[in-house]
């Protein structure tokens, strides 16, 4: 089994977005600590001296957007008209926009996370994940698995295919839930089709039980 690939936090975010609302803690615990999103650490725009504590709540507000009076921002936006570049929005405004990204095409949100660090941090935040799930009610559908005898094929539901959702010969898909697929090959293997992480469970042979 190859070593697990090194992941960006955005990709971890993609995984976590699919965590069902009824079991977030358990699934989050399955993500290795070094892969969990750590927004403050990866945030070069926030010049936080190590001595200054960054509270979780301020994380959301400590964007590179200069802090300003929201109502003043309206005036600034209102005065500038078409010939000017659009005024810079507040973090809250961007959040409202990103919330309305289509849940069924996960690549859209992924690309948005790559557009700038601030968005990456925003999309990775627990608050955004929670709101995105609540807003769209159900986690996005990645695709369908089709079993033919002992082979399984993955049919992506959107234009983009999760990188590790490949067709597997000699594997039988038993179940899929919480963004994971359970194969039998003849060990039980739990695969995350987005990150490629595998958990392999060797069961004792029936004769030895």
């Amino acid at each position, binding site marked *: 089994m190859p070593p697990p690939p090194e992941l*960006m936090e955005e*990709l971890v975010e993609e995984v976590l977005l699919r965590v069902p609302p009824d079991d977030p803690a358990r699934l989050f615990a399955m993500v290795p600590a070094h892969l969990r999103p750590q927004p403050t650490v990866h945030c070069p725009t926030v010049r936080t001296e190590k001595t200054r504590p960054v509270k979780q709540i301020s994380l959301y507000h400590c964007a590179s957007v200069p802090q300003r*009076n*929201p*109502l*003043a*921002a*309206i*005036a600034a*936006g*209102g*005065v*500038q*008209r*078409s010939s*000017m*570049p*659009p*005024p*810079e*929005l*507040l973090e*809250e*405004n961007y959040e*409202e*926009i*990103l*919330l*309305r*990204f*289509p849940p069924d*095409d996960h*690549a*859209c949100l*992924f*690309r*948005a996370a*790559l*557009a*700038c*660090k601030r968005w990456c941090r925003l999309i990775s935040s627990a608050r955004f994940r929670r709101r995105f799930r609540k807003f769209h009610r159900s986690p996005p559908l990645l695709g369908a698995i089709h079993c033919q005898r002992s082979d399984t094929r993955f049919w992506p539901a959107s*234009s*983009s*295919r*999760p*990188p590790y959702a490949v067709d597997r010969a000699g594997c039988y898909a038993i179940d899929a839930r919480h963004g994971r697929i359970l194969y039998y090959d003849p060990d039980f293997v739990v695969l995350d089709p987005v990150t490629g992480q595998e958990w392999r469970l060797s069961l004792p042979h029936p004769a030895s039980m």
Partner: protein
Amino acid sequence: MAAPESGDGNNGAARMVTLISSDNTRFEVEAAAASLSQTLQLTILDGGGGGGDGIPLPNVDSATLSKVLEYCIKHAPAAANGGAPNATAVDRAELERFDNEFVNIDQSVLYSLIMAAHNLEIEGLQSLVAKKVADMIKGKSPMEIRRTLGFPDPTPEEQAEMNAHMLEYGWAYE
């Protein structure tokens, strides 16, 4: 636009309130329409905005405010009916058509609107504009998103990082 009395318990002519934009333009509007703003609703419930007083909105300019009120006036009757129970399909289609045309505007106006809607707490308007901006950028590459939103060009380091991501995670760009 005359909002029909809809069993709110008000009597007589619809109550009017005055809103004053940052550039001192006065807008007289039905209280029901202005109350779509959660922020204004409190003031109006307290009896503010009537008579010659007016509610100053020192940071919303007249161009943005007139656009905001255009939305509020159109949506006030439906909101007074508590959403849609009594609304006919025709009414809903008409509102939808209005919404589609309403957001077919310059990007900087959209931005002013989303900020005003956020601060005045007009949920429907904020949702409408946010959806429009999301639709504008959802199919774009990270670089196109930056350009669309007027972000500054990435530094060479950021550019290199983006390129590396694109190579590594090509599936997101298919």
